């Protein structure tokens, strides 16, 4: 895969993962007073503020052959995670998921609990309420989270290079390729990739701005 195609493929997978894991977590943080809530909130947001190399180092410990997840995956015959595309996806997921969780949590907190309570008294179950009331009322925030998560995943560099390396065609995403091109003095190639990434990020922000300006519920 070309670096650009790889970037988008990794970011797409990371965003889907961040959505599936992040939305329920965001809802939990917004609505439920669970024990250890503050600790959970800190853990969830930590990847946002940690140096990417620290994140990468931590992921290597967990995903490596001696790590909990890495050892388990190999014993199941799933192969090595580090220096693989899966590793790149996991690195991008961990680095970008906090953006989804933060945005969606803020969105869920904006939804008046009376709507969910009304739905309960009308005989609906919790999952149905989440899908038909909470999520539709928070869609702007969730969409913003999606865009930010995807943009962050496309731009992931530090954790990815530590966990997945920069193997051409396998784990060398566009942001890694730019670095390699610059190192090798191929400024034109680096410039092309930089231009495409900048354009894509700008487009995402434009869409976000437009959506944010629409009528709220």
């Amino acid at each position, binding site marked *: 895969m070309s670096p650009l195609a790889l970037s988008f493929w990794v970011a797409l997978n990371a965003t889907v993962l961040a959505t599936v894991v992040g939305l329920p977590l965001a809802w939990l943080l917004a609505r439920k007073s669970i024990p250890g809530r503050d600790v959970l909130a800190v853990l969830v947001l930590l990847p946002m503020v940690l140096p990417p190399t620290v994140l990468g180092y931590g992921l290597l410990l967990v995903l490596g052959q001696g790590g909990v997840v890495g050892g388990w995956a190999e014993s199941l015959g799933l192969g090595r995670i580090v220096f693989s595309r899966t590793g790149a996806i996991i690195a991008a997921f961990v680095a970008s998921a906090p953006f989804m969780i933060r945005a969606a949590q803020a969105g869920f907190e904006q939804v*008046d609990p*009376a*709507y969910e*309570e*009304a*739905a*309960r*008294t*009308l*005989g*609906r*179950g919790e999952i*149905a309420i989440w899908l038909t*009331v909470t999520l*539709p*009322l928070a869609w702007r925030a969730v969409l913003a989270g999606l865009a930010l998560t995807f943009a962050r995943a496309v731009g992931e560099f530090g954790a990815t290079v530590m966990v997945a390396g920069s193997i051409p065609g396998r784990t060398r995403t566009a942001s890694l390729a730019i670095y390699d091109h610059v190192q090798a003095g191929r400024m034109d190639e680096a410039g092309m990739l930089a231009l495409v990434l900048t354009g894509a990020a700008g487009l995402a922000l434009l869409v976000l701005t437009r959506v944010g300006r629409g009528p709220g*519920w």
Partner: protein
Amino acid sequence: MSLDVSLRATLPDFRLDLAFETSATGITALFGPSGAGKSLTLRHLAGLERAEAGHVRLGSRTLFDASAGLFTRPRDRRIGLVFQEYALFPHLDVRANVAFGLHDRPRDARYRRVDELLSLMDLEGYGGRNPRSLSGGERQRVAIARALAPEPELLLLDEPFAALDFRVRGDLRRALGEIQRHTSVPMILVTHALDDVRALADTLVLMDQGRVVTTGPTVSVLEDPPSADAAALVGSALRAT
């Protein structure tokens, strides 16, 4: 159908400790000054709160019994609730709001029921409207239609007239009385306005500071309060109107 309620709940700055029993036919008013715990009691009846001690029995069904560890979830209580600010779903039109509690019925039956309610509530032609484009009185009618749709055994109304202009209050009071007679669904309404009680309530539950002061037929409680506490509350309510 009888309603037998006993609740004890401690909040950071409030204590609910009450018991009352009513035949729950016609309209029962929970009446008292603000801070009496009326709306909180309503939330307990709907199952949106869980008390530390007590019970809630509606007819032959026990919905809550703390000593037996029994608690029926709101979705299984068959009790409708009209919220003070109505809580109409802003992302759904009037028709979808009314149909919300009819999800387990076949489509034809659902449509028929929604049409029936829109006509009962004088809302024909409003089906496609967004709730935010409606007046306060219209919103209230949609909220009542939505709560009545799944045919609840009991309808709770939290300060149904508080958010409304005084000019439409009278009309809506009359309308609510007619709906009750037409559907014969027992209603419990929370109010701090004596006018609402006089115009609508068959039974009065007089509340103050988290307690029930007295329960009885509206006329007799208002005209002949059974205790000094009750007399003081009725007296101050009379002076306020």
